[in-house]
């Protein structure tokens, strides 16, 4: 099924044309952009799903008094951006969510932020909008002020209609948005019989920070800093995706040394987070010993980062055009020694974890996500790869520095919590090797390319493999080097719906460990 080139695009274009959809191909330097009429929006999705295209992202834009609605599809590492333009005060177009369940929340987000009505949407309740702004104001339209018009105290959100269950013995468990642990806010509504979960409904949006709105009018450096704060644990990933998009728009190539350092940063972030997650999964089944060990290793790893890069979580190390700091010979030696030490320590701990039958009993078969559902929701990263979804941007839509070498993509097929645990372990091993190779490839050179002010209206699409999976960031520039639109699509946006499915038929006390094995970002999802 794998094709090594993008020939499917030509075939698909023929099919789309045959179906009577006029596609206007707009040539942009690095994006394949197809424009269709808004009335054909859903029909296009139907053809795309027949072709097994993956729905990857959806966003809108209020640009020059018109609404640009976009959806991004992918197959075999090649992306097409579908666009339609609506010139109407009360815009509407047919939904794609009936065809692609992954588009559901994205369209609801667009509906809340732009007032675009998706007709025939299976669930058009509000999503990102809680009570911080009224029904009839739309924050991402041009006429909405950046500071908004918030009330002194945001009223409680009482009237959201959750799915209800009826019948003897069924009951509801509302959990959150404030949790007992130090985690982000999000509400989970369970319907259960006894301990068995009948249904789980997520209600997110509590960490909506208005990132898309406050990005407008920023300079590139300032936007890179903002992107680094979309989700604190993915600061490198989001920052890189935003910089990549801006560099595309400005038509800049970053120096090879900068690309290698970016690669090292991204892999270090992946390792730190995977170690934290593996510990947290153990902690959620009260196997505290492993958690303490993983936490210790992660802490040492972060301290090295603070020493070498000046920030524990590597914030603001990536800047438009390159990177913010250089690596000395000593730094490289230190990192290589640390990798050797980490490998031996990890193998000891993992042996203890692997041999523990009580842990095995909890992690195997629990939280099963079938490959079919994973594919239907377009699940990304370790969640997808633990359910057989063989996709990794670093390999399939490779970019510098990954295009210089072959990236191994580990897979697991069982789709349970144990799979998601062990796939993380394998990814750590791959990442450690990558860092070593990147260090070896480092040769003296510039760290930053000269910035060129992009033409007004120029666009860029940054696609990188963050530690949670594919990050897609869209950027459009206005005149004077100012950002007009910034949309970061965190992988969590596609992974969260999978959680609602994978907890079914599990028992209520197993939910925390199921959730931890997926570990979506609330902040990255809510924007």
């Amino acid at each position, binding site marked *: 099924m794998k094709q090594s080139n993008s020939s499917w695009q030509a075939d698909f274009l023929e099919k789309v044309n045959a179906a009577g959809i006029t596609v206007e191909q707009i040539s942009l330097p690095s994006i394949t952009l197809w424009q269709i009429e808004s009335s054909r929006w859903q029909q296009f999705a139907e053809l795309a799903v027949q072709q097994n295209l993956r729905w990857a992202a959806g966003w809108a834009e209020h640009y020059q008094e018109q609404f640009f609605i976009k959806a991004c599809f992918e197959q075999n590492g090649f992306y097409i951006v579908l666009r339609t333009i609506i010139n109407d005060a009360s815009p509407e177009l047919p939904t794609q969510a009936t065809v692609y369940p992954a588009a559901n929340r994205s369209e609801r987000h667009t509906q809340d932020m732009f007032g675009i009505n998706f007709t025939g949407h299976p669930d058009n309740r509000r999503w990102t909008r809680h009570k911080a702004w009224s029904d009839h104001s739309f924050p991402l339209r041009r006429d909405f002020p950046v500071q908004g018009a918030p009330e002194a105290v945001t009223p409680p959100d009482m009237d959201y209609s959750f799915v209800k269950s009826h019948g003897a013995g069924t009951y509801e468990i509302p*959990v959150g948005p404030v949790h007992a642990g130090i985690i982000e806010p999000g509400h989970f509504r369970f319907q259960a019989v006894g301990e068995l979960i009948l249904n789980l409904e997520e209600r997110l949006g509590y960490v909506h920070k208005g990132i898309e709105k406050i990005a407008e009018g920023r300079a590139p450096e300032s936007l890179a800093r903002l992107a680094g704060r979309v989700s604190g644990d993915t600061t490198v990933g989001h920052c890189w995706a935003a910089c990549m998009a801006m560099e595309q728009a400005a038509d800049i190539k970053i120096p090879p040394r900068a690309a290698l350092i970016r690669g090292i940063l991204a892999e270090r972030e992946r390792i730190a987070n995977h170690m934290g997650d593996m510990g947290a999964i153990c902690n959620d089944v009260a196997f505290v010993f492993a958690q303490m060990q993983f936490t210790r290793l992660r802490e040492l790893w972060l301290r090295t980062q603070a020493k070498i890069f000046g920030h524990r979580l590597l914030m603001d190390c990536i800047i438009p055009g390159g990177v913010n700091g250089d690596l000395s010979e000593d730094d490289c030696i230190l990192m290589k020694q640390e990798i050797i030490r980490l490998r031996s320590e990890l193998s000891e701990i993992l042996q203890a974890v692997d041999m523990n039958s009580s842990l095995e009993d909890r992690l195997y078969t629990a939280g099963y996500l079938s490959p079919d559902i994973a594919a239907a929701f377009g699940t990304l990263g370790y969640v997808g790869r633990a359910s057989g979804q063989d996709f990794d941007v670093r390999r399939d839509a490779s970019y510098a520095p990954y295009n210089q070498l072959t990236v191994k993509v580990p897979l697991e097929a069982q789709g349970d919590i144990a799979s998601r645990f062990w796939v993380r372990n394998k990814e750590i091993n791959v990442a450690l090797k990558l860092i070593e190779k990147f260090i070896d490839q480092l040769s003296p050179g510039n760290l930053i390319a000269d910035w060129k002010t992009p033409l007004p209206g120029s666009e860029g699409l940054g696609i990188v493999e963050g530690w949670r999976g594919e990050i897609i960031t869209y950027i459009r520039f206005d005149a004077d080097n100012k950002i007009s639109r910034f949309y970061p699509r965190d992988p969590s946006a596609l992974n969260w719906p999978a959680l609602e499915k994978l907890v079914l038929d599990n028992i209520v006390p197993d939910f925390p460990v199921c959730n931890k094995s997926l570990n979506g970002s609330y902040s990255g999802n809510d924007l």
Partner: protein
Amino acid sequence: MNWLMAAFQTLLFAALAPLLAGWLKWCKCRLQNRKAPSLLQPYRDLFKLTNKQPVVAEQASWLFLIAPYIIFSATVLAATVVPLIAVDLPTSASADVIVMVGFFAFARFFLALAGLDIGTAFGGMGSSREMTISSLAEPAMLMAVFTLTMAASTTNLSIAISHVLNEGLVLRPSFVFALFALILVAIAETGRVPVDNPATHLELTMIHEAMILEYSGRHLALIEWASQLKLMLYGVLIANIFFPWGIAETFGAQALGFGLLAIMGKLALLAIFLAISETLVAKMRLFRVQEYLSFAYLLGLLGMLSHIILEASR
């Protein structure tokens, strides 16, 4: 004098329970390669909580308010029945081991009611799980206890312990079975790993903690203290019934002092074993608890059978 001794022993129970909890936490921390808090930390926590104003939910009824006092008193009363440093207690004569189990059940009944009272989903969930587990644990507990009482022909704990002391060190299969049954039950009843996790912050996985989520201030202090007492009670039961050597048989100062040291040593050792087991195993899936407790019941039953078949005929 005897009554004074019983009162003194109960006071000791209440005073030492937080120390045992502190020691257990210390052992667990060391086994996890962490720095441990001071052994006195549980005392500080209790003191801190007592000085805080309790926050009570608007929906709470009188039941929620009195439950901590009932739970604590019932646990203290249960403690009066169990010989700690000396046998031959008048309280043991007036209340036997079945009364002790009854006190536990009484305390648990009110704890479960309090969990339901405020009407939160977590409280109800915790109460339902607690009742499920206790309905399985109590028969196993009684079966283990009956094995012992059949051997000593009494349900009076003081007499039973004296009986074991007089018998000397004899390896009885019935006692071995009963010991293991009681250990399994003790872990379940005191909410330790692998049945419950007292250190968790995950509401959905909680059993004991879910019921007391809404408690704060002195109410919480009383409940915490009661659960520390309960942990110690089970420890003392296991230590003094199966390994009673060292317990004071007379009320002389030297014998009592030695008895105190003996029980502290035994409890410290038991806590080390508990800490090791909690470090080695993950918490089991909730629906595995029934298998676990059925196994405890089976052990108790085997103990009784082996007593009848092997020992009673002699």
